[in-house]
């Protein structure tokens, strides 16, 4: 399992907000991709409603996941590939290392894959003495820097061109430059050597088609084609929910995925891979393995409240519009998945209690639902997670809310159910607030234990005459009206 640092959410978020470079990078990614995606949806010939169609299609796939996985595995087997099922991260990593040993693999080239990030594949392969090179330019940059991805599709978005320039000068021994084309060409040259000499290519998988027995990989750089064409062995990793029934399902999903991810009509390269090299072909790997990973997903599947999150195709559209992600960036989320999708899926994978700050931190503004290419109701699930946290329960390792908070809300609930008590409370509060109300008519500081409410904002004071008082008064006036 990769390192989980969800507990440090608040600390990391605070650091990120102070980081000026990150703030401008995040603003730029949201300004360009977020707006571009919204525009691209409107330009769909079928209109933005296509997202609903895609949602229903994904939900149908998830609800027949057992049949789809069985058909996929059988068809890949018929095409000459091998399918391995892994219950958890450890099993998936072990399976990959076994394959590497069996094929005498020393060097691996990797395409960007969030699920391998989730299971912590790279450190495990390195510990087994295998050299792993990330080949997506963004992933390559952060691998050289010894960091982790901060965005699902633009992993090095937190780095400036100057930082990349200094990094390449130091690690690749080139003269310093901050020109993106020159930097890209340097990486192209260095990685081409890796592609040509690697023994094994590892990729993720954007979707899989059960009926034809293919996985699909999507990229713009061409690195995944390199990694799945040139080395002797190809190992693909897939979260078990990423399968669709029919080929035509991909038509809609790819168009939406490309728009959600990068406001494109269609990504530059899409490959449908169904098995190893066949007789008479001069290239392609001699062996193809697909590792299908559960790692907590069947638990989510069994929970009808959260099953919908398995429709997600990891395009990152929700990151590009989220006001919270836009300020704190990806690292604060403490796991492979960030932004609104991370705030839902991470607690479900690693534990609600452990990752509670992620969903407590989101604003429930609903922008993520509008941006989602498959129309997932993320705000609903963020709320459901909060309810689960408050209610507690052994099922998802939540302790339940804080006792003092529960007592307070119980008292509050009793108070607001009684007209006289409530009105009395309000009158008392409106008198008690007077010493705290400033000259500008705003409350700048509340006393403990309410001081948290005013730490970063001013509050309007309670009104001296409540709505009910005014209502009653105006009704009296109206009743007196002779007409």
């Amino acid at each position, binding site marked *: 399992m990769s390192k989980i640092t969800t507990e440090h959410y608040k600390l990391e978020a605070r650091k990120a907000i102070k980081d000026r470079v990150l703030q401008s990078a995040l603003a*730029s990614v949201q300004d360009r991709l977020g707006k571009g995606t919204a525009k691209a949806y409107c330009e769909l010939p079928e209109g933005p409603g296509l997202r609903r169609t895609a949602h229903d299609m994904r939900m149908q796939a998830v609800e*027949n996941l*057992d*049949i*789809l*996985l*069985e058909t996929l595995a059988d*068809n890949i087997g*018929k*095409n000459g590939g091998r*399918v391995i*099922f892994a*219950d958890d991260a450890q099993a998936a990593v072990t399976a990959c290392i076994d394959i590497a040993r069996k094929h005498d693999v020393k060097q691996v080239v990797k395409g960007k894959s969030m699920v391998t990030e989730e299971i912590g594949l790279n450190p495990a392969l390195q510990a087994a003495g295998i050299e792993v090179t990330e080949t997506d*330019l*963004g992933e390559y*940059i952060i691998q050289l820097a010894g960091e982790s991805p901060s965005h699902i599709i*633009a992993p090095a978005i937190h780095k*400036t061109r100057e930082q990349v320039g200094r990094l390449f000068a130091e690690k690749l021994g080139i003269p310093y430059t901050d020109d*993106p*084309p020159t930097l*890209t060409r340097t990486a*192209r040259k260095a990685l081409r050597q890796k592609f040509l000499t690697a023994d094994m290519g590892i990729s993720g998988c954007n979707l899989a088609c*059960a*009926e*034809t*027995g*293919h996985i699909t990989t999507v990229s*713009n*750089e*061409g*690195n995944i084609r*390199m990694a799945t*064409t040139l080395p002797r062995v190809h190992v693909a990793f897939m979260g*078990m929910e990423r399968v669709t029934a*029919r*080929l*035509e399902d991909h*038509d809609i999903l790819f*168009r939406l995925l490309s728009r959600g991810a*990068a406001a494109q*009509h269609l*990504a*530059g*390269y*899409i*490959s*449908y891979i*169904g098995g190893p090299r*066949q*007789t*008479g*072909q*001069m*290239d*392609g790997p001699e062996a193809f393995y697909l590792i*299908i990973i*559960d790692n907590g997903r*069947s638990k989510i*599947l*069994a929970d009808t409240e959260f099953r919908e999150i398995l429709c997600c195709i990891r395009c990152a559209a929700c990151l590009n519009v989220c006001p919270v992600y836009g300020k704190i960036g990806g690292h604060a989320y403490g796991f492979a998945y960030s932004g609104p999708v991370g705030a839902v899926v991470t607690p479900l994978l690693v534990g609600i209690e452990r990752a509670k700050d992620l969903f407590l931190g989101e604003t429930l503004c609903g922008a993520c639902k509008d941006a989602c290419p498959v129309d997932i109701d993320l705000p609903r699930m963020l709320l459901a997670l909060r309810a689960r946290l408050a209610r507690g329960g052994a099922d998802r390792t939540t302790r339940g809310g804080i006792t003092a908070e529960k007592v307070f809300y119980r008292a509050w609930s009793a108070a607001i159910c009684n007209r006289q008590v409530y009105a009395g409370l309000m009158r008392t509060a409106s008198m008690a607030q007077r010493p705290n109300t400033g000259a500008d008519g705003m409350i700048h500081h509340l006393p403990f234990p309410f001081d948290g409410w005013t730490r970063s904002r001013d509050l309007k004071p309670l009104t001296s005459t409540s709505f009910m008082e005014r209502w009653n008064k105006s009704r009296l006036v109206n009743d007196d009206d002779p007409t």
Partner: protein
Amino acid sequence: MTTQHDFIGRVTAALGYAGAPERRRATVFTAHPGSRHGEIVKRTRTRNDADRLMLLNELIAQGKPLNLKVISKKDPSDTAAAIAALVEEKSPEWGGPKSVAAWRHPLIDSLDLPEILCPQKVPVYSPRQINGEPESTNKRSSFRRRVETAFIGITSADYCLAETATLVMKTVPGSDRSVSLLPSIHVAVIELNQIIRNLPELSACLNYEGKPPDWGLTNCLTLISGPSKTADIELTMVHGAHGPREVYLYVITPTAAA
């Protein structure tokens, strides 16, 4: 290690079903995927020249923002001449003498490239030119070395999608994947009637003509929309991240149609 049976059994249990998935299977899949698409396939096959030319124009327009250069040519010899000019004009990205890799494919063979490029002394390598047992490792590694050093790769395609400017390539003997991937410049040659509208038409055509288990996709179906690109450094678009930096698509358009 868990077995397929146990793993899928757990998924079934998580979904809350008890056994007998046959009825669900019948709602999810049909016996022959092609049978769903008869109408669409008929439409693609019965297009008249005017419709096909409209698709070509759309392809040209969609290619532009992607940096895909779509060029209409009247016949194979005209196309071959254009390729010869391109070979003359461009220089190898990684240095060394010029060489070209090409598919073994009826349309590409008809261009007579070895002959056309002979005056420039630029060799053309295709799986055909390499001697040895068809299945030998030697033959494969020798082909791979040729493709690695080639600065231009010449392929055809099975289909081309007008709406997204996408080349679609099945993997079959002679149509090797690395030719459209390793060289710095990718040149593709297709005929006008290979242009179809979009992804739904593609799925229909593939499934309709296909057989189980791969339903027409082969072991690797590749979709290419323009040259390789990245925007990973400050969202600055750069062409030529790993794959070809430039892509040229020649469409042989009979004069009768044009």
